[in-house]
């Protein structure tokens, strides 16, 4: 559900949650992105940074600069005057993936759960465009929604999270795909591995100059299947610093 009016929820004394609904949909996500842009453009006094998500936004503010009531009324007036967001700037980023194998060992389970073959899972996952609805938990990690898949891939998460997931793992949990930017514990089913970084703490590749995280909310991702040899070639290019990301700047409408 998307609420008639956004809810303003206290998140301690230096954060405020602005909740526009409780659903994980493109519609809710568009509203949050529109709101985030409007708040940034309005340069509201005391706002330090925003964290837009699926259906809500977390704002951090300097409580010594603005009182919470004033902040809320300022935000309410922004909410009232922004038009419905129907299209947004959205980058289409292509990422190579080696499906299956040692670091995609749950591919068979994903296939069983969706009553299809592993090849079909790969076909659906690479054909579908994936929407970045939120970034975080670990640095630069996206949560991806399948946009109009011919069959929605769905799978339960691990009951007890594994202790180690390698960097670059493509995982599926529920109907969301995640990419693991750094080695970490995890609960999504492991489908494969991408040889390209989505987080670069050294900011050594040109694409990471502005931020060590490649992805941001509102991006779209297309996965392209690669096999062993191509995977190794791409990894080599990344190491040598001459891998070129395929990124198209486009607009996207709901």
């Amino acid at each position, binding site marked *: 559900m998307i609420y008639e009016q956004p809810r303003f*929820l*206290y*998140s*301690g*004394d*230096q*954060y405020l*949650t602005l*909740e526009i609904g*409780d*659903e*994980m949909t493109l519609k809710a996500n568009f509203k949050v992105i529109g709101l985030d842009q409007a708040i940034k453009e309005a340069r509201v006094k005391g706002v*330090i*940074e*925003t*964290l*837009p*998500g*699926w*259906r*809500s*936004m*977390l704002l*951090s503010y300097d*409580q*010594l600069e603005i009182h*919470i009531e004033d902040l809320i009324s300022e935000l309410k007036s922004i909410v009232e005057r922004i038009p419905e967001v129907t299209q947004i700037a959205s980058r289409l980023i292509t990422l190579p993936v080696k499906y299956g194998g040692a670091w995609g060992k749950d591919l068979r389970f994903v296939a069983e759960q969706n009553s299809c073959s592993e090849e079909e899972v790969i076909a659906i996952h690479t054909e579908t465009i994936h929407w970045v609805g*939120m*970034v*975080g*938990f*670990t*640095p*630069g*990690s996206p*949560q991806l929604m399948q946009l109009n898949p011919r069959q929605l891939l769905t799978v339960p998460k691990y009951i007890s999270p594994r202790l180690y997931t390698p960097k670059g793992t493509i995982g599926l949990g529920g109907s969301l795909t995640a990419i693991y930017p*750094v080695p*970490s514990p995890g609960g999504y089913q492991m489908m494969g591995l991408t040889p390209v970084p989505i*987080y670069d*703490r050294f900011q050594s590749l040109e694409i990471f100059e502005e*931020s*060590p*995280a490649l*992805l*941001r*909310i509102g991006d779209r991702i297309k996965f392209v299947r690669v096999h062993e040899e191509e995977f190794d070639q791409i990894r080599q290019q990344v190491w040598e610093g001459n891998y070129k990301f395929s990124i198209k700047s486009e607009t996207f409408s709901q």
Partner: protein
Amino acid sequence: MGRPTFEVIQQGVFTSIQDLGRKGYFAVGIPPSGAMDRFALRMGNLLLKNPLGEAGIEVTGLGVKLRVLENTVIALTGGDFDARLNGRSIPSWQTIDLRKGDIVSMGEAKAGWRGYVCVPGGIDVPVVLGSKSTYLTGGLGGVRGRLVRKGDVLEVGDPRVPLENLKGRKAKESALPVIEGAKRLRVILGPQDDHVREESIQVFLNSPYRASVHSNRIGYRFEGSQLFFKERSGAQLGGSNPSNIVDDGNAIGAIQIPGGKEPICLGPDGVSMGGYVKIACLITADMDKMAQLRLRENIQFQSVTIPEARSALEDSLQRVNENNIEMQ
């Protein structure tokens, strides 16, 4: 460039370089980080006439042992780590002159849990995304994105004032926090307290909790009474357990209650998002208190208002004031 000033002889258990943290990257999952006890870092910097946000060494539970490579001054703040200079006991919260060849050693925490070693000019490590603070998960800041290790040589920036001007500076007793005694961690209810049954909110606020050994800069886990959720109507959004919600952003200090058990209060390196009900959030001023909790120490949560939280922060910031420095 910084001057090599300390060689790390013993590294402690979780020693990192911290300033007051970074901002602007939470939207991609990079938390602010920074000193967990900010009063202690600020006061250490004030004693040394540094900008209050200069970087120091944060130790946890067990301190470091340092060989001094060049004459300098330090101020030790935060918990009591039974610090010694060449074997002789030295006090915290005041400046200590060091000579080349000296050995500064800290032991186990006797009171509190986090200590700071501050130095004029600050620890000189590269500024990464606007801060020198170490963020281990992301491999950012500090000494090449990692903890301080035995064998590291730590460099120090240029002092703002001649070292002799720092002699004998001491923080007044009255300005210091009381580290001993039962602690109350003040919280503001929300953002999802409305998912929790009223009786359970009372239990949360009125029963003792114990800091678990599974606590660190990412989060503090507390053991205590089971909390219960209201019945949910309609679709089970975000997951089948009533402690699940559709993922949203986490405040630093947010207290999640997965399964209604063991509240987890996020620290300065906390995860930016999650799908668990957050019953309340710790107030900014009391992150300092949480930083000094000893493992298995009992606490109680206390609900306060936003104006009360602001007064507490203002009080903490105002205590770091030249009027609270005396000469020995």
